[in-house]
């Protein structure tokens, strides 16, 4: 397999505060990688370094084995969706793309093709100033597709899309990766947005990688039961052989027992459960913990 994207020990600080603190990752052709983390985790900074818009303090960012700025015709190799704000409000969608085509030496025909591919053909001549956030995301995506690149880098592309739009985007990314063989790196701060789409996930928080692996491995994580009980249920569970961890909020997480077994044990020992649920995804918990930690940090 070809390594389409390769980041090695990337570091970038703003005013002495690290935004990205030693991130390394690779993305292979034909796969979709989710780059996940709460707001402020360093996702955008990483992607902008990769695209040559931000200069790293140290580390290397390579696409197809080269620095982005060294690619002879970058948008034919890498398509990027950065933010839905990079448009002149009084310029039409068609003009925006035609400008990119002219600068890149691509045939003008690509403009209308790309608008069609993202479902914006009807708005081609409208000023972008009147576009909804969802339409801007689609226009940004059209810009990324102009050069028919084999690498797609997308920063929170689902922002502003309605549920139907998000579904469309998923199908779209799958098609590009799995049928056209593109390497896709897509960031999001909402796990649920991408978990059904991505093959691999990389979780980042505070500028550092927290976890990475195939989505199958990450979600396989040992199943656990989350409960809240009135009274002291923990010794009972442990007496029955379960492994229990207790959160500061009184939530118990039980491993080594099925949800049925936990329920039956509560009934037999006459303990009232106020909450019981399966935490299927290790990934979800990692993600929630990260987000919680961040919110708590903000409060203190």
């Amino acid at each position: 397999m070809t390594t389409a994207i390769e980041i090695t020990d990337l570091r970038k600080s703003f005013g002495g505060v690290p935004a990205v603190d030693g991130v390394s990752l690779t993305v292979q052709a034909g796969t979709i990688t989710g780059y996940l983390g709460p707001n402020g985790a360093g996702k955008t900074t990483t992607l902008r370094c990769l695209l040559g818009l931000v200069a790293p303090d140290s580390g290397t960012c390579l696409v197809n084995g080269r620095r982005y700025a060294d690619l002879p015709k970058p948008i034919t190799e890498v398509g990027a969706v950065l933010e839905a704000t990079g448009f002149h409000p009084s310029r039409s969608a068609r003009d925006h793309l035609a400008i990119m085509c002219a600068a890149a030496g691509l045939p003008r025909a690509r403009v209308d093709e790309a608008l069609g591919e993202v479902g914006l053909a009807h708005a081609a001549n409208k000023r972008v100033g009147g576009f909804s956030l969802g339409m801007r995301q689609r226009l940004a995506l059209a810009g990324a597709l102009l050069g028919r690149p084999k690498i797609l880098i997308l920063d929170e592309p689902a922002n502003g899309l309605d549920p139907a739009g998000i579904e469309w985007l998923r199908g779209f990314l799958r098609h590009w990766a799995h049928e056209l063989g593109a390497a896709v790196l897509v960031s999001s701060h909402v796990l649920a947005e991408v978990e059904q789409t991505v093959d691999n996930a990389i979780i980042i928080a505070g500028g550092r990688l927290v976890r990475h692996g195939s989505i199958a491995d990450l979600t396989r994580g040992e199943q656990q039961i989350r409960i809240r009980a009135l009274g002291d249920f923990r010794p009972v569970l442990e007496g029955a052989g379960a492994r229990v961890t207790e959160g500061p909020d009184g939530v118990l997480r039980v491993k080594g027992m099925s949800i049925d077994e936990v329920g039956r044990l509560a009934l037999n020992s006459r303990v009232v459960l106020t909450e019981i649920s399966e935490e299927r995804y290790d990934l979800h918990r990692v993600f929630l913990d990260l987000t919680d930690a961040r919110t708590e940090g903000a409060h203190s």
Partner: protein
Amino acid sequence: MTGLVKAELRKFFSTRLWWIMLLVVLAWTGLGLSLSIALAGMEGQPARDTVEFQQMAWIYGGGTSSFTMILGIVMMTSEYRHRTFNSTFLVTPVRGRVIVAKLVTGLLVGLLFGAAVMTLTAAAVIPATLTAGGEFSPFANEIPRMTAGVVAAITLYVLLGIGLGALIRNQVGAIMTGIVWTFLLETIVVSVPGLQEFGKWTPGGVTTALYDTGADFGFGAAEVLPMGTAVALLTGYALLFSLIASFTTVRRDLV
């Protein structure tokens, strides 16, 4: 580079900026010409059939260079204001090439604006002269030199604006700086005794040199630089700003 210039031209003609600025420039020129035609022959003003009238009116459009400087500033800074630098620098990661393309485009746009201003000037001044019984020849009375000078002033100020915009990036900040530089500096130099001899080196002084005919409009003939020096100086400023910007502000992180 041809593709980049095409892209820049398309940027220029795909927003409202160009025709609004063209209207402003033509309105300014038209208003000034109307006034000088209306006032011609009155107390202290040369009559319409005189060479002095022709020469005074012919260079009136040169005053629009302040507007074309703003045009250049906006051409550059709107990339930052509207964050179009994302797509611009993704397509062309070697940022200096974009600055060069903008300067080339500014040159073309400046020539176009200059041609429009001179067309309007000719359409007003020639009939005004002829109907008053005066004579007009496009090749006499320094008309070719003044035409070149006005077009040069209008064009070089677009380039100057692009350079300033690249250096300052903030649209309002760049426009304010441009205005202070061209107007305030002028006023200070002209009004402070001892500095007056430097007047020919100020932006306004240099610009006057572009189309000065040595004609005396009652204030005494101004002491000005040779036209070639003036062109070189303004071009030099524009290129210097752009060059400094290319190695500083333009290289900054785009976050």
